[in-house]
């Protein structure tokens, strides 16, 4: 005869109380065991050593306003330098009396990016917003119409230039990457060969080389008197470069799609394009969000390389500001300032990728 463990059904019970409160949390997370206690103490010591000097330099001893660089050398940071050079670092050589234009451009970019976070706007409306936004960016920067004075692309610099290169590079590089990834998996040998050749060639060459080629070699092949704007050439180089890298990330996602998904789509009579758009890509891209965003962040920071063809991105305008004879030696301040700007955009991208991951994870949640 079988043992009967309970002769009556076990009634549902409340879960045991969680160990809560600050003390409980501390014990559970920081002091649970000898090793963790030692590590905790070491970390506390490290923070105690490192943080106060940074605060003293950056806040307590900092000089917030000064007539010139000479009177700004104390023990702390000279934020007066940033105050003095803010407009130049952020907007570069754009005519000073037109500063509202690049400032609006930065505002438009931030607006477009924030709008992309709103789930309700996804789809046609967001696409429309971005098209309008990019047109507005171009119109504001270039001028020459609507009563705006024309500003040559050589004057475009600082943060707007960095944002334009990065955002347009990603926006066009991404679809290019998807096409290349699909082409690399094509059944047609010629398409496959072209895509593999392209990806391997571009990936195998440093971005600096591509920028040089776009800037120095391309004009040699063009008919005399025919020129392409330098910024356009750099932008194209960026798109081509981003495409090659993104292609390999996307391909990783494509390869992870089970064969059964494709068979199911085929058996329902979906065409190749429908199958790719509705079944394969949504799943493949959702799977590779972390490496995609990784690549996007890389591309964003790679824009700093355009200095090799003397385009003045955000980092370069900061370095240029440092060469003012009246304000010399404020390297840390300049790099911290620029670093914070770069970091905020990259951090935003990272957060955005987490939002996307949560959004696309719904199907897997039980």
């Amino acid at each position, binding site marked *: 005869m079988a043992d009967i463990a309970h002769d009556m059904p076990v009634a549902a019970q409340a879960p045991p109380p969680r160990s809560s409160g600050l003390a409980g949390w501390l014990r559970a997370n920081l002091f649970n065991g000898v090793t963790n206690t030692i590590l905790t103490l070491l970390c506390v010591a490290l923070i105690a050593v490192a943080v106060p000097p940074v605060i003293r330099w950056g806040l307590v001893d900092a000089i917030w306003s000064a007539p010139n660089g000479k009177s700004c050398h104390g023990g702390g940071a000279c934020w007066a330098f940033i105050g003095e050079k803010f407009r130049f670092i952020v907007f570069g050589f754009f005519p000073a009396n037109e500063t509202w234009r690049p400032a609006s451009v930065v505002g438009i970019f931030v607006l477009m990016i924030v709008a992309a976070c709103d789930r309700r706007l996804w789809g046609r409306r967001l696409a429309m917003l971005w098209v309008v936004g990019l047109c507005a960016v171009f119109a504001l920067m270039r001028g020459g119409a609507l009563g705006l004075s024309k500003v040559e692309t050589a004057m475009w610099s600082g943060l707007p230039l960095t944002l334009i290169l990065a955002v347009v590079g990603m926006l066009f590089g991404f679809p290019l990457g998807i096409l290349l990834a699909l082409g690399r998996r094509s059944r047609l040998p010629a398409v496959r060969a072209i895509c593999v050749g392209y990806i391997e060639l571009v990936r195998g060459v440093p971005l600096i080389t591509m920028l040089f080629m776009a800037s120095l070699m391309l004009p040699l092949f063009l008919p005399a008197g025919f020129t392409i704007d330098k910024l356009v050439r750099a932008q194209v180089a960026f798109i081509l470069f981003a495409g090659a890298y993104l292609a390999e990330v996307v391909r990783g996602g494509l390869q992870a799609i*089970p064969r*059964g*998904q494709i*068979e*199911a*789509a*085929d*058996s*329902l*009579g*979906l*065409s190749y394009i*429908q199958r790719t758009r*509705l*079944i394969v890509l*949504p*799943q493949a891209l*959702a799977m590779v969000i972390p490496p995609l965003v990784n690549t996007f962040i890389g591309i964003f920071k790679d824009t700093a390389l355009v200095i090799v063809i003397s385009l003045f991105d955000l980092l370069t305008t900061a370095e240029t500001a440092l060469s003012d004879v009246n304000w010399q030696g404020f390297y840390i301040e300049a790099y911290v300032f620029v670093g914070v700007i770069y970091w905020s955009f990259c951090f935003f991208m990272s957060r955005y990728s987490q939002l996307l991951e949560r959004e*696309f994870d*719904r*199907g*897997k*949640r*039980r």
Partner: protein
Amino acid sequence: MSDAAASPPIVPAAVIELQAVHKWYGEFHVLRDINLQVGKGEKVVVCGPSGSGKSTMIRCINRLEEHQQGRITVAGIELNADLKNIDAVRREVGMVFQQFNLFPHLTVLQNLTLAPIWVRKLPKKEAEETARYYLERVRIPDQADKYPGQLSGGQQQRVAIARSLCMKPEIMLFDEPTSALDPEMIKEVLDVMTELAHEGMTMVCVTHEMGFARTVADMMVFMDRGEIIERAPPKDFFSNPQNERTRAFLSQILAH
């Protein structure tokens, strides 16, 4: 080749017709001289040991696999390299897979309406009405807004059946529809399939569910090593198998 395979029964108005079909995977001869006719409304159950080519054969019927020799005609359309023909056949043939193959990023309702909207070009509202009707039919009307991952295996397979039915196919292919299911879920799927059979759907099922085969099949087909070894109505097939290999297979599968 055995005598039983040499003389296929004559079926009037065959909707599926395979004539001398051969297929190789590299050097490996997976399908050898397959001749099969399925009439309108007929139910054919295909069985055989694993690796015998049963799945390959039914996957040739909607061109998920390509045959290299012979002729396959489905609903009057010949399957050849012409992509238009392949699309036309796939519109008429529904398929249910062992692994369900639902689209995990879409809700149940979206799974069901996707092909009607994009392939049949139905308005969304109409596609959703059809979808809800078939969800009712497979007895899961209240799961329309869930994702496939939130359903049990049996429910997923019933959604997969409903997804195929939403395309209003003439023919349904089942490729081991219950093999990936826990035992207690097999019945709910077989019940749906039995109901479908009673309504006159033309069906080709690869399955080892012999109880289902007995009640539903008009014709049993036994395959081994890429050949059709024996075909017979289920009564004769189970009580009086002609071929030695059929007998061996049946004794194994019915022994427990």
